[in-house]
Each structure stands twice: as structure tokens, then as C-alpha cells.
């Protein structure tokens, strides 16, 4: 019973955060802020949804946990790679004050 409620609550939270993440990437001003909103909210959203299902259905728990772990590892990585890529093709972050971009003059060093 408690597990049931807990699971449903987790799923609800997760779904809401999935929605917020999507809303975030829609409303934020520039790519990097969108990425921030997108990554964080969807990661938590997906994690909590998946684990919620795992709690509702105990024999699924281990597999859902694996999915959750995988999402938690992979999401920030793809986000980071995208951010790096965006910066490399010259998308400037939205800044209120000039000169806050300390990454601007860093180039990719060659692999040894």
C-alpha cells in the first residue's frame, strides 16, 4: 500500500519534471541554459519515473534501476558533448556582461 503510493508519487513527480524540462528547453534564452534545464529536469524526471515503476512492480526493480543508472550517467555526458560542440561551432552563450566567457580562447589540443 505504502509502496503503491510511493511509486505513484514518484511517477507523478517524474512526469512533472519531464514536462518542466521540455518547457525549460522551450522557454530558456540560449542553448546553454536550455541544455541546463533539459539535462537536469529530464534526468530527474526519467530517474524518478523509472524508479517509481520499479517500486510499483517489485520484480522489475533491478532492471529499472539499471535504466536509471544508465540515464544518470549518459545524460550529462551527451549534454556536455553537445555544449562543447556548440561552443566549437561558435555559438556564443547569452551574456549580460561581456568577457564572462573564459572558454572562448581555449582550443582543442591534439591527441598525443
Amino acid at each position, binding site marked *: 500500500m505504502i509502496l503503491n503510493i510511493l511509486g*505513484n508519487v514518484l*511517477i*507523478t513527480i*517524474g*512526469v*512533472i519534471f*519531464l*514536462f518542466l*524540462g*521540455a*518547457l525549460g*528547453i*522551450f522557454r530558456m534564452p540560449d*542553448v546553454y541554459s*536550455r*541544455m541546463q534545464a*533539459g539535462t537536469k529536469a*529530464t*534526468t530527474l*524526471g*526519467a530517474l524518478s*519515473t*523509472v524508479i517509481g*515503476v520499479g517500486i*510499483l*512492480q517489485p*520484480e*522489475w526493480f533491478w*532492471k*529499472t534501476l*539499471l*535504466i536509471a543508472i*544508465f*540515464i544518470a550517467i*549518459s*545524460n550529462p*555526458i*551527451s*549534454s556536455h*558533448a*553537445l555544449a*562543447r*560542440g*556548440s561552443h*566549437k*561551432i561558435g*555559438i556564443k552563450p547569452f551574456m549580460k556582461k561581456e568577457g564572462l566567457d573564459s572558454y572562448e580562447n581555449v582550443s*582543442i589540443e591534439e591527441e598525443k
Partner: protein
Amino acid sequence: MIYIYAAFIILAVFFAVLRGLLGPTTSDRVVALDNLTTISTAGLVLLGFVFQRFIYIDVSLIYGVLSFVGVLTIARYLEGGL
């Protein structure tokens, strides 16, 4: 309950797609795609739960893994790697 979940997920998909269509830069659209796949991964788990079939979870797992590689490839292309 299920209606609430469905509503939120539909809204999430809607906004992600909207960003994908509008997004001024390529990265925006890739972010939208990444978001869409994450939403789908979670959504598939939920759907599997609704259909009450344990084996459906496999799809979701593989989905997460592979869409990650896909997005990473596009990101690597963007930064001039690949």
C-alpha cells in the same frame, strides 16, 4: 492517474518538438532530440507498466543506450571531431 501522466508526457513532447522546429541553431534541435529520446525512454517504461509486460522493459533499456550514442555522434560531428 494514467490520464495525468499521459497529459504531462504529451505536453512535454509538444514543447520538445516545438523547440526542435523553432530552434535557431542546430544545437537547439539536437537538444530537443535528446530530450525527446529521454522522454520516450521514461515513457516506454511507463507504457510497459501499463501493458503489464515485464519483457517490454528491454526496449526501453536499449533505447536509452543507443539514443545516447546517436546524440553523441551528432555532437562529435558538431565539434568537428568524427
